[in-house]
């Protein structure tokens, strides 16, 4: 299967290369695989890509951590204090319904062109994913498990530590993929709209001078990184949820 998958990829790239060489596809608009590879090699050789990549990853990581912690805390609080949950419910739903991208210009004004405007944009996306999963995780706890723990002498704190938090984390872990992916998308969009560094910035710069090769090279590097991160998250998730996988 892997062979066939590789062949399919090669066929598509080959066709692209062939059509661009023949002039059927305009190189100005579509670039060429060989040019893109050369550009990426050049970026990597000169090392000019690393600072951009690092900034993007840093922003995504910060967005993920801050949004994740806030999501867990709020999800937990609102699930355990029902009246607070009821009070904030319409606001949370409204905020979540808002397309987050439209907030990017506001955050740019508020937090400037540095990393924080992107981090905050990422946080607004990650927060809701983690929040809803934590909330669900706590509501999904089997009452028998809770009663069993209480009969075994669990205090409120014991219940939180041994029953509710692990249950919520189960849901959060299983949404790691989504939240990390969202964090990456949000920070790249943020960079694209206004930044001085980052892969998103690189792509927007290339676009500004009609450098299609640069755009494609940026996109390729970004997808490779996301795939790599996804693979890592997959391993992490499998380890964290190892008790489930039987």
């Amino acid at each position, binding site marked *: 299967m892997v062979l066939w998958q590789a062949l399919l990829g090669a066929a598509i790239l080959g066709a692209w290369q062939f059509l661009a060489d023949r002039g059927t596809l305009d190189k100005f608009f579509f670039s060429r695989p060989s040019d893109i590879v050369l550009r990426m090699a050049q970026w990597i050789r000169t090392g000019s890509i690393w600072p951009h990549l690092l900034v993007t990853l840093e922003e995504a990581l910060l967005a993920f951590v801050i949004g994740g912690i806030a999501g867990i805390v709020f999800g937990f609080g609102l699930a355990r204090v029902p009246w607070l949950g009821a009070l904030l419910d319409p606001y949370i739903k409204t905020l979540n319904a808002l397309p987050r991208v439209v907030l990017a210009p506001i955050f740019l004004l508020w937090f400037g062109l540095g990393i924080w405007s992107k981090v905050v944009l990422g946080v607004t996306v990650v927060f809701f994913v983690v929040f809803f999963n934590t909330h669900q995780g706590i509501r999904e706890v089997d009452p*028998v498990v809770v009663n069993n*723990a209480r*009969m*075994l002498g669990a205090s409120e704190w014991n219940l939180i530590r041994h029953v509710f938090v692990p*249950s919520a984390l189960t849901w959060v872990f299983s949404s790691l993929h989504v939240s990390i992916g969202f964090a990456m998308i949000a920070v790249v969009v943020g960079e694209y709209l206004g930044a001085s560094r980052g892969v998103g910035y690189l792509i927007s710069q290339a676009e500004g001078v009609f450098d299609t090769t640069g755009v494609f090279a940026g996109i390729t590097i970004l997808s490779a990184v996301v795939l790599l991160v996804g693979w890592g998250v997959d391993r992490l998730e499998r380890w964290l949820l190892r008790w489930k996988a039987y």
Partner: protein
Amino acid sequence: MFRAGSGGCVVSDTIGCLDHAFSRPAIRFENVTKTFGSYTAIRGVSLDVREGAFVSVVGPSGCGKSTLLNLAAGLISSSEGSVSVFGERLSGLNRHAAYMFQQEGLLPWKTVLENVTLGLTFRGVKPQEAEATGREWIHRVGLDDFSSAFPAQLSGGMRKRAAMAQSWIVDSGILLMDEPFSALDVHTRLRMESILLELWTAAPRTVLFVTHDLEEALALADEVVVLSAGPASHVVSRYSIDLPRPRDLIDIRTEPRFVELYREIWASLKQEVLKSYARTE
């Protein structure tokens, strides 16, 4: 702990058992009624569970057997009447009782050892000490090779063993069991019942065991209590089981005295089962 010999008192006697003079009941239900909204689960139940006795409660489905256990556990409170534990009126959770639920409440993210020692962890027992005690109990229920397995890796029978060790490790005077083996196949069930009796013989506690299976109730208990069909169920009759201990659960079911007792209790239980059929059809 004081424990009266089995068959030593006539529990069906309305005046009560002579033992009461010098042994307070572990659990006492006094004229207990429990309603859920407009539904009356049990009405006017009075029942003493002697300290150290193994008491089985049988009755048709939906007769409020679980309600009785939840009241004794303090998970719910009575609408009328009172529940006392070792002479003290129960309010809030019953701290003298462990509870084995029909569906075992093991934490899926903890290993067998961690689950078994949960009660010790909650009581602040040192980890090494808890582990040592935990391994001992895991050995007693025959799960030695699975102490670091997660519940999802275990069969239904093995999960029951873990749940049993989990509820027995806590040295509580009372053990409440809600149809713990009803989901198991016949042979696994017999094995679990034997393990339960072994544990009970080694460390006697007051057991209130709810089941819909009269054979199981009879094979295990010192006393069988028959509840009427719900709603508003009440105690219909009580039988002292004078089968000698230790009991061999494999053969006991064909012994003449067992069969005799079975006939006698079934005559009473049958009426209630038929009533419950009539109500649901």
